[in-house]
């Protein structure tokens, strides 16, 4: 009876643990952050609107000061007597207006519009607006006129336009400029809002008897009090310009119909709402099925490759650190070479090694007459996973005399996947070997001594001391390795290039030209879909997929962070 209970108990325990993990992940990794985010946003907005009538009620005269800054940014500061604040803010406003005016064609507008029949369509901002108004117009409409249209009695052309407005609209450029303009506008609005708030707050202080500082003193005070903010500025600016703005742009492409059918200047891109998302989630079975297949392989690859490099690194560290090995440093030096070789070079070399016609492996095998033997081994059907998707056809190496197609024939897909994991292991484990060797050195020897006194076997020492200690120290790295591998573009792109390809007959109509290869992970599929499909380059689908990758990884990482108490500890 006891044995029965023991045999049932363990899997049951594991199952419960797994269930708990899933539940915990959903609760702490998905629902809580979303709830928190929404709560914070609503609370912020609510507090803001609640504070306005209160300010008006409590400090009417200061509120008016704020209003004058709302009317004209900087005016409140001037009235407060702080010219050194008011003048720069006003100057920024003037600069904005000036840029808008100079970059636009406003001077021509009155004369030309007077002669224009009122009932005809006229896109005022398109024709006369400056960089800001035109940018906003372009962002919301994504253009109005394309090659072949007739507008104001003239044909719209794609090159050599006699007048600016005769040029066909390029939706992509309009959208890009729109994002840039919106970011700058947001920056300007932030200054405006600051000006209102500052005018109000300063006036309150003035009424309480504060003296207006002299310019020099003010500068010094700002430098001292806001030093941390000032030193952030250059980094933040670069982050906004080269990371945030591209991010926003790509995010928005997901809500358009920008796919292979769009030819810029001949077609307009249109805002499409959630259509593409709906297609991915089922309206278009091809999108959904290939997404799920690829996601499955990506997750499998990320998990298995993280585990294999970790385990192999652990084994290697233990072996090198074990007593009989002499020359530990030398062994380690040789074994970390694969890690030291730049990843791209290693992967390209591997792609040559596994090349079907010129590759080193086929060359060696054929020189020693081992091609058929290899094929027999690979086809060997002792594996009980016949119907398990990932191993389904690994042993069905193509029946062909001659070279083995490691990853060019579609029936070899799982062989190619196995090779990818092995190559990743080759490249990745030395890092963990080094890491774990370092951690092994930090285990206090008293622990082992105590174990010796208690008569612990080597096995037990490993199980109860070494392993838990190392695992605890390296847990963060395992997670980052997982997210890194999930987006490990290089391994696929440089090594197999995503191949083997799906046979044409299996690809649904909607995906022709942008289908993934059988070893493509999401990230490499997204890249080839957007940039390397020639006439089929599809941006909206690629953007939707990358948003989904982003959300998936974000949930995993947030969950992981939520479990790290130290991240949330205040540290100042």
């Amino acid at each position: 009876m006891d044995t029965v209970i023991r045999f049932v108990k363990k899997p049951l325990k594991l199952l419960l643990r797994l269930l708990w993990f899933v539940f915990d992940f959903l609760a702490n990794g998905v629902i809580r952050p979303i709830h928190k985010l929404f709560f914070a946003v609503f609370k912020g907005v609510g507090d803001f609107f609640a504070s306005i009538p209160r300010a008006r009620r409590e400090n009417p005269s200061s509120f008016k000061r704020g209003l004058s800054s709302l009317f004209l940014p900087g005016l409140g500061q001037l009235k407060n007597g702080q010219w050194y604040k008011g003048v720069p803010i006003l100057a920024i406003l003037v600069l904005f207006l000036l840029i808008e005016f100079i970059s636009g064609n406003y001077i021509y507008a009155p004369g030309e519009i007077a002669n224009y029949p009122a009932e005809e369509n006229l896109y005022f901002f398109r024709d006369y607006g400056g960089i800001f108004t035109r940018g906003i117009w372009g962002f919301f409409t994504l253009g109005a006129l394309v090659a072949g249209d007739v507008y104001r009695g003239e044909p719209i052309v794609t090159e050599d336009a006699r007048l600016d407005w005769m040029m066909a609209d390029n939706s992509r450029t309009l959208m890009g400029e729109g994002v840039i303009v919106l970011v700058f506008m947001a920056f300007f609005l932030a200054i405006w809002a600051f000006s209102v708030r500052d005018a109000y707050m300063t006036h309150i202080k003035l009424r309480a008897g504060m003296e207006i500082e002299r310019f020099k003193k003010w500068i010094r005070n700002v430098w001292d009090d806001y030093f941390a903010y000032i030193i952030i500025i250059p980094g933040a600016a670069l982050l906004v310009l080269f990371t945030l703005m591209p991010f926003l742009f790509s995010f928005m492409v997901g809500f358009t119909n920008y796919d292979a059918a769009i030819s810029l200047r001949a077609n307009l891109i249109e805002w499409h709402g959630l259509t593409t998302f709906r297609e991915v989630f089922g309206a278009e079975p091809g999108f959904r099925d290939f997404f799920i297949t690829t996601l499955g392989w990506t997750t499998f690859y990320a998990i298995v490759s993280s585990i294999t490099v970790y385990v192999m690194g652990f084994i290697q560290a233990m072996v090198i650190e074990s007593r009989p090995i002499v020359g530990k440093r030398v062994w380690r030096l040789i074994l970390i070479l694969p890690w030291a070789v730049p990843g791209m070079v290693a992967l390209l070399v591997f792609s040559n090694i596994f090349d079907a016609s010129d590759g080193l492996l086929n060359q060696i095998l054929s020189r020693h007459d081992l091609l058929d033997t290899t094929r027999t081994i690979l086809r060997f059907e002792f594996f009980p996973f016949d119907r398990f998707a990932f191993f389904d056809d690994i042993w069905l190496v193509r029946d062909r005399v001659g070279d083995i197609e490691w990853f060019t024939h579609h029936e070899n897909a799982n062989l190619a996947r196995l090779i990818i994991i092995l190559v990743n292991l080759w490249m990745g484990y030395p890092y963990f070997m080094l890491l774990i060797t370092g951690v092994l050195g930090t285990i206090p020897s008293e622990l082992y001594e105590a174990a010796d006194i208690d008569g612990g076997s080597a096995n037990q020492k490993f199980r109860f001391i070494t392993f838990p200690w190392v695992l605890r120290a390296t847990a963060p790295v395992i997670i980052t390795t997982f997210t890194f591998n999930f987006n490990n573009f290089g391994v696929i792109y440089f090594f197999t290039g995503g191949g083997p390809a799906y046979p044409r007959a299996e690809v649904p109509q909607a995906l022709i030209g942008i289908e993934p290869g059988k070893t493509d992970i999401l990230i490499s599929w997204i890249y080839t879909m957007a940039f390397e499909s020639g006439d089929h380059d599809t941006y909206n689908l690629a953007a939707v997929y990358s948003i989904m990758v982003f959300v998936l990884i974000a949930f995993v990482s947030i969950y992981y962070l939520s479990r790290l108490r130290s991240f949330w500890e205040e540290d100042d």
Partner: protein
Amino acid sequence: MLMFWVRLKRALFALFAYTWLIMTVIIALVPISYMVSAAFSPVRRLRDVPVIPRITEWSLVNFREVFTYRSTGGQLLPDYVQSFLVTGLVATVTTILVVIFSSLVGFAFTRYRIKGKKPALLFMLGLQMFPGFMGMIAIFLIFRVFGWLNNPFMLALIYVGGAIPFNTFIVRGFMRNVPKSLDEAAAIDGATNLQIMRKIIVPLAKPIMGFIAINAFMGPWMDYILPSIVMPRNETVAMWLFRMNDPATTPHEPMLFMAGAMFISVPIIIVQIKMQKYVTYGLVSGGEKG
């Protein structure tokens, strides 16, 4: 008798351990020796390259080709040298700016009270998770609008912007283990912000800044995707390597690829091996200990 069994067990273990190590060493070395062998071999086809370099037949013919090949006639420098210089410039500019900007951000996030620090950190973490090159359409566009395509300095700026989130976490992880009593004492003595920064924080943070610098310098050498989009006419080393190895483009010269790859790999390998001791910084970059 017991002693004998223990000894036998040990001997067997030693035998096993050495066999295992020798096996793994061989596997680790085969691709590398293949690259070296191909780089120094006089044959024209990859198929004829032996795994183990044949020392008696070595030749520098591939290297000579790498260092003389010009894809267009009127070029001043050979393609490889040109791309090497370009990448060197990118890497240098990147390193300088990354060290300055991201350590400033990192210091601000560890040494000072800042409103909205947590949201900012989370925001940066989030930005990092977005597949970077999806922003490339936008980056390409911005670059075209402002005429920055093919400009190595602007490429470097992208690297700098991209490096800030990660490095902020690195600096933060490092600096929170450095006691604050020193800068607090200095502030009480009336030192200004700049003085504290120059005299106290920077010297304390030197090791981590060195780490950031080396990382930043190494990055551009092996980055392919970004330069291939924003520098279409101004090749970097990675683009050169990829072009040589790509069967879809001409010339497809895997032998030259091997030579060029080896030339660029040797310094990188040396630096990486020297950097070994920093590997445990991975623990820092993983965020914080649990």
